[in-house]
């Protein structure tokens, strides 16, 4: 049973220190179920650190992350995945010695899906994302863009996937592959109700995909709203201009 328009992810007063550096600073943010949220900010503003904190790669210094009201910030990454949260990395991190198809099977197996069912879904997703013809190719042979696309599509093998954290998915990707990525994201959001939090510097793509945008600067949330609202926010302009 899916809850309509309810808070999916609640981040409360989250902080993360690396020695004397505070990468995320007293950050609070909420995500509604079914939305596609953009997360932008200048380099070093804490976007990737936030993704690492939500996905369990880092443990927070203070504060909490709640998923459907359940605290998840102390859980290891594999347990967070079992809650229905997947993520991608800035640079495509694939299982290079495995084929494209085998890469797809891993997240399906970890949730107990049988090989036949997993293969069926993998084929469907690979065909939709135009990676089908590369199924038997070792993943290490893919180009940067293809690798990034596979990284995204692989995450959709988890069912149900409730929240997908995409870290710079469009960086350096060929426009044709980027269009396939956008189409895939929109389809999964529409058909399977997947919520997305997308970190990106590509404001045109973010505008195309996201209804709401959150802006980080120096580890703090400085603005939130539609693209028009944040674009006119003087704090956002200052942060991008080095203010």
């Amino acid at each position: 049973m899916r809850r309509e328009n309810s808070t999916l992810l609640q981040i409360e007063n989250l902080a993360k220190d690396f020695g004397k550096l505070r990468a995320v600073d007293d950050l609070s943010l909420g995500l509604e179920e079914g939305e596609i949220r953009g997360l932008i900010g200048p380099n070093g503003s804490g976007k990737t650190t936030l993704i690492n904190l939500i996905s369990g790669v880092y443990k927070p210094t203070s504060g909490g992350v709640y998923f459907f009201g359940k605290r998840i910030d102390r859980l290891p990454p594999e347990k967070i995945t079992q809650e229905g949260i997947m993520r991608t990395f800035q640079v495509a991190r694939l299982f290079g010695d495995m084929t494209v198809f085998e890469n797809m099977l891993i997240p399906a197996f970890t949730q107990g899906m049988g090989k036949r069912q997993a293969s069926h879904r993998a084929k469907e997703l690979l065909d939709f994302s135009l990676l089908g013809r590369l199924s038997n190719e070792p993943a290490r042979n893919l180009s940067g863009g293809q690798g990034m696309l596979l990284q995204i599509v692989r995450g959709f093998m988890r069912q149900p996937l409730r929240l997908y954290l995409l870290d710079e998915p469009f960086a350096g990707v060929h426009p044709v592959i980027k269009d396939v990525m956008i189409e895939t994201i929109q389809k999964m959001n529409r058909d399977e109700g997947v919520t997305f939090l997308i970190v990106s510097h590509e404001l045109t793509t973010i505008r195309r995909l996201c209804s709401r945008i959150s802006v980080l600067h120096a580890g703090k949330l400085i603005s939130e709203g539609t693209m028009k609202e944040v674009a006119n926010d003087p704090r956002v302009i200052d942060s991008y201009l080095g203010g």
Partner: protein
Amino acid sequence: MKNISEARIGGLKSYSLLLAVLLVVCLLPFWTGQYYMQVFTIAFYYVVLASSWNLIAGYTGQFSLAHHAFAAIGGYTSALLVTRSGFPIWMGILAALLSSTLMGFILGVLCLRMRAIYLAIATWAFAESVRIFISMTYKLTRGDLGLAVPKLFLGEGRGIACYYFFLGLAVVTILMIMIINHSKMGYYLRAIRDDEMVARVMGINTTRWKIFAFIISSGIAGIAGAFYGHYNGLLTPVMVDFNEMALIVIMVVIGGIRSIPGPVIGAIFIEILTETFREFGEIRMVVFALAVIAIARLYHEGAIGIVRQFAQLISRRKRAGEGVNE
């Protein structure tokens, strides 16, 4: 459709080749003398050790240097129970399996969260402790003098019985590793080796699966060690000498790490070479070490990779020839 049928034909060819090799190995005792039958028996023991070490080092990426110690733990457990407490051999071997898997579990829990070099150092330290313990506890193990162990088969046909027994052990080990490799566990282990953090993000409990692989691998080594003791009739701390571990690594690397046939080819090849050049003494290890450096530097896939490339080259030429003819 063409690809599928080509893959099937390729698979059939591989299985036919495998069966042919197995047939030759089964008939080998009728062609070779007693000496080489013994060499092959020991080679099969190393096939078991090399293949099971490949499961953790090759498929999971955990470079343990304690594999020979698990063989010794198994060997001494069975030998001591049989000689000191009068247990039947089969019970000694069962105890060897239990003791080596238990030690594998303990070492796995303690060490498998460590990374690369730290894991290698910790497992090496464990193996050295086992060696020193065996040497020091003279009253129990007879230390460097060696512990006499009741033999597995007796009588005139002992040599041939041991040959087929160790061949069977090697075949069962290889089949087991093949099954693991094609199961979900095999996928998880390969994923862990490729990128452990991504494997965790994909939902794999990496620590659990690494420990599980370590336990299986230790158990296989323990059983092999126990059978080796009952075959050889004498156990000494030399079994835990670092040279033994080095030999296992050499066999896997030269044969081809991360492949099923690699450690098999490596173990048989190196064991035959070791015996053939016995008169050269320890200099053999220097030559093997140089071969490992050359393979690590120039050709990671080892002998099996060279064979595969050669087969691909012939197949490409054959296809090109067919194309010209058409």
